[in-house]
């Protein structure tokens, strides 16, 4: 595609300074990508290959590594702790993604209306949580949801409701973390959905208006189907994020109580702290495979419906 203009200009250039300009033009891209490539190979490609090898050894960070074949993988796949961490992540996914999508679509549709006043203000307010540092917010969560002194239980008390052990009971720890995640990232999903909405042709709504379709009907029959790509994209992004969730449980609950918030990402970290590097590496790969399989599944269901 670029061949035509390229030779054209090369010919023009040759007239000015024969040869050397063309050589420089050939060499230039190598120089331009070199710094990136150095960093990319040193800190992405090499570590990845290294993890792959590590996952077949029992190396503990010192001494000689012993090749153990698939042992780390079979150990994990037969370990209730590993499945428990996936289960915790799956529950968090269920608590987060459906709510976030419904809420996200409603808010995005409302904000997309050109006649809505204060749109800018709302949009800014919804993104504030997304730009705030997670660690700071996670700490505020700890204080807000403290069973004895927290503001949330103070509100419940004011309404005559009993205290809830938000972070200290295994029934409530997941919803509390899910709420943190929802609060932090829903604005981001709204922004993504808004951009999807802006690509929908307005004349479709005008035609539906003429046919007398109600606003809700229009959302269900025009907006949602045309937004499906964007919605699926959001689902894939959030699936990746939920299954990799690490910093939230690390700061707020340290995976507890009773491992109820030991997410897939946090479980992986546990191997590192125990210097069980081979198992950790195997765990990373299992997690990657799972996440990629889930993403593919979502993409395929999207294609199938198209």
């Amino acid at each position: 595609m670029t061949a035509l203009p390229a030779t054209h200009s090369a010919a023009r250039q040759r007239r000015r300074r024969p040869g050397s300009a063309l050589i420089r033009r050939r060499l230039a891209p190598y120089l331009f990508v070199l710094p990136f490539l150095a960093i990319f190979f040193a800190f992405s490609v090499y570590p990845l290959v290294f993890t792959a090898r590590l996952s077949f050894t029992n190396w503990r960070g010192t001494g000689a590594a012993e090749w153990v074949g698939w042992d780390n993988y079979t150990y994990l796949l037969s370990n209730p702790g590993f499945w428990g961490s996936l289960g915790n992540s799956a529950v968090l996914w269920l608590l987060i993604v459906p709510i976030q999508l419904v809420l996200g679509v409603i808010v995005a549709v409302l904000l997309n209306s050109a006649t809505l006043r204060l749109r800018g203000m709302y949009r800014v307010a919804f993104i504030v949580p997304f730009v705030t540092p997670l660690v700071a917010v996670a700490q505020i969560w700890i204080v807000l949801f403290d069973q004895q002194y927290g503001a949330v239980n103070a509100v419940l008390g004011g309404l005559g409701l009993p205290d809830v052990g938000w972070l200290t009971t295994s029934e409530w720890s997941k919803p509390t973390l899910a709420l943190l995640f929802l609060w932090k990232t829903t604005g981001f999903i709204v922004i993504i959905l808004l951009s999807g909405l802006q690509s929908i042709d307005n004349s479709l709504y005008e035609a539906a208006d003429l046919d007398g379709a109600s606003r809700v009907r229009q959302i269900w029959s025009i907006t949602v189907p045309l937004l499906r790509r964007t919605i699926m994209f959001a689902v894939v992004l959030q699936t990746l994020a939920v299954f990799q969730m690490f910093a939230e449980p690390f700061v707020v609950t340290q995976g507890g109580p009773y491992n109820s918030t030991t997410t897939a990402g946090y479980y992986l970290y546990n191997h590192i702290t125990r210097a069980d590097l081979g198992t950790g590496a195997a765990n990373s790969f299992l997690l990657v495979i799972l996440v990629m399989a889930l993403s593919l599944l979502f993409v395929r269901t999207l294609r199938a419906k198209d």
Partner: protein
Amino acid sequence: MADMTLTERDQRETSAPSTSATELGPVGARGSRRSQLRIGTHAFLLLLMAGFLAPVAWALVSSFKPANDIIRAPLSFDPSTFTLDNYVAMFHDVPIAHGFLNTAIVLIAKGAITMFFAPLAAYAFAKYEFVGKNIIFGAVLITLMLPTIVLIIPLLLEMKTFGWVNTYQALILPGAVDAFAIFWMRQVISAVPDELLDAARVDGCSEFGIFWRVIVPVIRPGLAGLAVLTIMNIYNDFVWPVVIASSEQMATLQVVLSTLAQNITGNRIGADYATVTGELLAASSVALIPLLVLFIVLQRHFINGILAGSVKG
């Protein structure tokens, strides 16, 4: 939420029978329904907005209350008890200034590397042919999908081999020319017309000169988006810093903050809890403010940055 569903149901029920009547033009009825809907919309959005802002607002306000009041009366604020005690105690007990310094050093160095080398490499991917281009770009796309935690173990070992644990290099170099930045900037630069580059060549511009004098000025809005996104990511980055640089000397702002939370969950003793909570809210507020200000000033670029890679992918 209740407001919204009510109004919507109201709207649906009334609009079905009135469809035929609409053609006759009951403008008044339709108008009043519209305004009801508008009030419902605003009620819903305002409620939601309050929910989104409440945690941050509560933390900011509470950080100026006496520590004991934060836990004794978490929902009230008496302006006459306004105090900076939490901040004074926090700056005394927590090495937060040092954390800010470390974050600033990493931000400047890593940010500069990203902002220069990512568009430069992306320029090569967008506008040149070279050996291995497609393979390398494929590898970039794959790393985009990988969870970051996958690389943590081998990177940690690599840093140990280099003797880089608890150094600035370790905080700055890994991820400095991030795959996402390459991917996004390649798309932005691809949109620049080739004629512009050829015209510059005819004028005797060098290949780097084309990048510097033609590409960079043209893609400035994209660069602004990349800049804010990069700042946000580096400022908020936590997982890698806590693994590689957790010493007191090297801890970044987020790492300093996270140790505070561990104090609070690890050490639940009556009076002490109040002090720690006060300091924690003060520290969180101090950490929140720079990014909030930046966001409010540069919101358009933030939104562009957040959107950029996502939807086009």
